[in-house]
């Protein structure tokens, strides 16, 4: 089984701050991590490697420094890593990103494509499903459980209040939730191999076949007009009471606002 896992390097938003003036993220000095939903997707792929001997390729589009995320994936146990990088790809929205990733995936053998549900720096949840559309593949999103049954997968697709068990034939694309599993650590030997033995394949525009009008900022239909931090409308009220009294007040207030 050949698996492609699409990952994104993102700023660790638990340590990120917003610039109050511009409303944008202050990325300086913030550590970069593999997007959590993607990391669980990678863990799911590595489990299939452990159990069935699957071959795992990790793919990312990003600047040169996204290489670190790929090395981390190799250190966790991925077999192959591809970095899609080109100035032409820069500034892409989800449409341009999915067009570029789909073009790259067209050049790789696969039975299963795994993408994280959404990235913590954008929260769109669009790139995975769009890739499936470009490649005309069946897709199952919001996956929290996965079992292989012959050439099909039994997937647990999670909703807010219920789940579906879906059977889907490969090849297909799934998007995974971080709640799916607890990703393994890198191993010491894995890190050493990732830097000394394995290579990151770097693909540029010339390495993929793609409609150039769908690339980068120019190929992005989404335009961000303004981003801002939501202001606080009214001052909060502080109650210094015991926990029972506090619960009562909370319930009252929620009822008052018709939330419950």
């Amino acid at each position, binding site marked *: 089984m050949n698996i492609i896992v699409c990952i994104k390097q993102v700023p660790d938003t638990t340590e990120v701050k917003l610039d109050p003036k511009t409303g944008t993220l202050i990325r300086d000095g913030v550590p970069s991590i593999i997007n959590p939903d993607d990391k669980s997707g990678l863990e799911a792929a590595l489990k299939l490697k452990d159990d069935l001997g699957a071959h795992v390729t990790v793919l990312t589009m990003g600047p040169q420094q996204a290489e670190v995320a790929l*090395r981390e994936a190799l250190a966790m146990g991925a077999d192959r890593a591809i970095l899609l990088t080109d100035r032409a790809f820069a500034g892409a929205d989800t449409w341009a990103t999915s067009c570029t990733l789909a073009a790259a995936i067209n050049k790789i053998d696969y039975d299963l494509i795994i993408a994280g549900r959404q990235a913590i720096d954008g929260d769109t949840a669009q790139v995975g499903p769009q890739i499936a559309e470009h490649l005309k593949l069946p897709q199952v999103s919001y996956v929290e459980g996965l079992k292989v049954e012959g050439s099909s997968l039994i997937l647990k697709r999670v909703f807010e209040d219920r789940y579906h068990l879906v059977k889907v034939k490969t090849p297909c694309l799934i998007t995974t939730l971080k709640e799916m599993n607890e990703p393994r*650590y*890198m*191993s*010491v*030997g894995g*890190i050493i191999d990732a*830097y000394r033995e394995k290579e990151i394949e770097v693909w540029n525009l010339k390495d993929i076949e793609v409609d150039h009008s769908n690339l980068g900022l120019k190929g992005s239909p989404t335009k961000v007009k303004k981003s801002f931090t939501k202001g606080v409308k009214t001052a909060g009220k502080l109650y210094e009471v015991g926990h029972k009294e506090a619960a009562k007040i909370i319930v009252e207030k929620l009822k008052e606002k018709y939330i419950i």
Partner: protein
Amino acid sequence: MNFNLTKEQIMLQQLYREFAEKEVKPLAEEIDEKEMFPIETVEKLVRYGFMGIPFPKTYGGAGGDAVAYTMAVEELSRVCATTGVIVSAHTSLGAVPIYEFGTEEQKQKYLVPLAKGEKLGAFGLTEANAGTDAAAQQTTAILEGDYYILNGSKIFITNAGYADTYIIMAMTDKSAGTRGISAFIVDAETEGFKIGKKEAKLGIKGSATCELIFENCKIPKENLLGKEGKGFGIAMKTLDGGRIGIAAQALGIAQGALDATVSYVKERKQFGKPISYFQNTQFQLADMATKIEAARLLVYKAAYKKDTNQPYSKDAAMAKLYASEVAMEITTKAVQLHGGYGYTREYAVERMMRDAKITEIYEGTSEVQKMVISADLLR
């Protein structure tokens, strides 16, 4: 000269920290309180390759080096000194002598499972009457046919009882002094090999420290490590390397105590403000951080010299002497800055201060390190 970590070292440090924070730190208090050897943590350390960091992949190791190993012991000890010494004694004392002095057969049979972490290693030199005077060995190994017959006992052995493979020093020729000492690889399953009294200790309480007893143990001739009579040299060279591990442990303890203190002084209020606002606190922290950084440079340099095949005996002694004394000083100051709370089990610095003391004693006391350093100066 370059003081920057490589990208590989930065990623290793990231792994070590994450693993230490999530898997080791939550258990540190309990294993100290209950004097409990953390078997489950060791299993996880095995899974992620911590037990064979400096050995080549061909021998089951992670393919790293002394610096990578040193950083691991440092980061583990930063949250739990017990876990740090388990890895250090296993690697530096149990496995390294086989890697450096063993035959190819011995490496295949004993080093590979140690480096993979399938087996745990330990080392026995110290005896009741042979501590700093390590040459006063009483344990004997007499060759009879295809076996050496081992008789005697060792004390204060780290990982004892949990280890599968022990490197044991014994006298093969009592008349020859240090030249009569030989090194052996002893299987824990050997008949007549028993684990004696377990020590109740001041610190590193989760680490198993016991007596080893040998009663007519038949050690196959092929388990002689190196040549007969060369055991003292093997032990001394092994301890040179081991000292880097203990120096790293001391460094980690000191850093952990500083980390805890920095957060505490920002929270603790006296006279209406956090105690971090007082210049006494600030100056203490500055001194602590500076000494820790100096210790770190000594420790990493000793490891670097080992990796680049330079003589490192003096460097390892300096690193251990300084880092262990810094650990004792910093943990003591950390308790002082925590005040009364620091003296209680509520706060980790109490444990850290108890853990720090041993780093000035084992694998050569501070006095032994001074002997090594001055011998190099005066030769």
